[in-house]
């Protein structure tokens, strides 16, 4: 494809000696289908122009045609590194719109899976960043632990990757003692690996020199550019929705918000590593204190699909099931609009839902953190070398499926 003048921005005659390098969309170091048009002066990056949309699949349009329970399968495919976190975010938004109050048990289960998803996402993010800067062992350590989290999710809901675990007003299945046991084992064994990972990279000279003072983002810029999550926190923005707008059961747990001041790639790596420790603390506290009681909201409220036992054996269950699945019935939704956000691993993942009273959202806008973070890229890379491109990309953790939706 030929490049238009606007894409490469070579309007200055004096810059004729600059090289234009097309990085992606098929490039092993981009990990996903990202395309960046780099303007190079030797090895120094003068300018970078991200081109996105290669993975655009119309998720928001689909959201206007799938009902509130069906759409959760699409959210799996947004940030596919941590699908559970997207499931939780989507149904959190739906329940805000519908005004459903979850049971304490469901809140705890969702908190556990959201935090496990955060660990899994951060493992991939720091692992891939290590891989791109030459630390292959580190990447394998991280990936092995991700497998263990996949095993937990498989025991919990049957799917490893695209979980679709949450439902309006509850979850697909209740948590079982076997899952709790697997989570306990993970919580007790993961710190050893996390310690090893820290010892591998935190003071590794090659890694530190490739990431310190690279891609610096200042605090004011981070706020002005709508950054959220670990990227904003690495620049000194003390914003974490788990603390600032507590949702689910986060109010009940003792954990810290991890921040750094430097705002460079190393700080972003460091914040993610520190957040894994905090997430582990939350999982440990939550899984030991899951309240007894029902996991889904009551059948009488006509807000959640009843279990098959209830459908086959009670008249209320049968009625509720039919009320919810019949095309001319369904959820009782107010004609309103609401925005609600959760602290996903990558940052603020929010959904702006507009409803016209039917089963299907009238508009389901997703506020993807990767989209806003990728917009930073030209600013972060300007003046650095070509080899820093992968370090900065890795530290931003851009997931193209979420970026393009």
């Amino acid at each position: 494809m030929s490049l238009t003048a606007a894409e490469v921005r070579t309007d200055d005659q004096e810059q004729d000696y600059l090289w234009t390098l097309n990085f992606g969309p098929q490039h092993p170091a981009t990990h996903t289908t990202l395309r960046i048009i780099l303007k190079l002066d030797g090895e120094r990056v003068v300018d970078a122009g991200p081109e996105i949309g290669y993975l655009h699949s119309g998720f928001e349009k689909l959201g206007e045609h799938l009902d509130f329970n069906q759409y959760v399968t699409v959210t799996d495919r947004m940030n596919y590194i941590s699908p559970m976190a997207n499931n939780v975010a989507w149904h959190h938004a739906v329940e805000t719109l519908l005004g459903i109050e979850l049971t304490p048990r469901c809140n705890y289960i969702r908190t556990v899976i959201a935090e496990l998803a955060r660990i899994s996402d951060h493992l991939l993010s720091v692992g891939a960043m290590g891989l791109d800067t030459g630390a292959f062992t580190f990447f394998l350590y991280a990936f092995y632990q991700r497998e263990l989290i996949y095993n937990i999710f498989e025991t919990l809901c049957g799917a490893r990757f695209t979980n679709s675990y949450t439902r309006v007003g509850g979850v697909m299945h209740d948590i079982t003692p076997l899952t709790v046991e697997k989570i306990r084992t993970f919580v007790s064994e993961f710190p050893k690996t996390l310690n090893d990972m820290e010892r591998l990279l935190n003071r590794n000279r090659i890694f530190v020199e490739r990431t310190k003072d690279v891609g610096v983002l200042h605090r004011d810029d981070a706020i002005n550019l709508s950054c959220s999550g670990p990227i904003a926190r690495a620049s000194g923005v003390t914003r974490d929705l788990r603390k600032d707008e507590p949702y689910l059961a986060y109010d009940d747990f003792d954990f810290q918000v991890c921040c750094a001041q430097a705002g460079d790639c190393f700080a972003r790596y460091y914040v993610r590593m520190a957040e894994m420790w905090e997430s582990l603390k939350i999982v440990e506290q939550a899984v030991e204190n899951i309240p007894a009681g029902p996991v889904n909201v009551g059948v009488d409220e006509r807000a959640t699909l009843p279990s098959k036992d209830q459908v086959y054996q009670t008249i209320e269950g049968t009625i509720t099931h039919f009320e919810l699945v019949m095309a001319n019935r369904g959820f009782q939704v107010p004609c309103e609009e609401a925005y609600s956000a959760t602290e996903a691993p990558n940052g603020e993942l929010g959904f702006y839902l507009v409803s016209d009273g039917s089963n299907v959202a009238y508009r389901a806008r997703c506020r993807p953190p990767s989209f806003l973070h990728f917009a930073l890229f030209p600013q972060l890379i300007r003046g650095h070398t070509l080899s820093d491109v992968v370090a900065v990309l890795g530290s931003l953790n851009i997931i193209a499926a979420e970026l393009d939706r």
Partner: protein
Amino acid sequence: MALTDTITALQSDFGDLVLSEFRGQHRVTVCRAQMYDLLQALKVQHAFDMLVDVTCVDYLHYRGATDRFGLVYLLASTSTNARLTVRVLLNEPELTVPSVTPLWEGGNWLEREVWDMFGIRFDGHPDLRRILLPDEFTAHPLRKDYPLQGRGERHNFPVLARGDA
């Protein structure tokens, strides 16, 4: 509470605001002419330093709706943790609003996406091109008169031979 003070102050500064509230989320609907001044006041005087999202809703088939498009600005404050939604209602043919990129740089790609998906132009935007769809795409697919299937699909694109591109 700080947010109610902000809303009271806005009401005295900008006369005809429509206020609403749903599940504790406060919304301000402002006319197109006052929109930029209101957002500027929110940023400068009321500490709404973060633009969380810019999006749009097409109310074409919405029951009882009188306006075609509702542009939505979601603001947040990192100091007070308050959130505020600012809505601007638009109708054809006046689908141009001032860009908020001078206030929040983060609005750059968000506004490009709204232009791409809804065809709303932003005056003063530094680089208003399509962002997710290819440049030769002609429609704005998140409008309600654009079908889910059948248009703009792959087989409708022209086939280029090697060397033509």
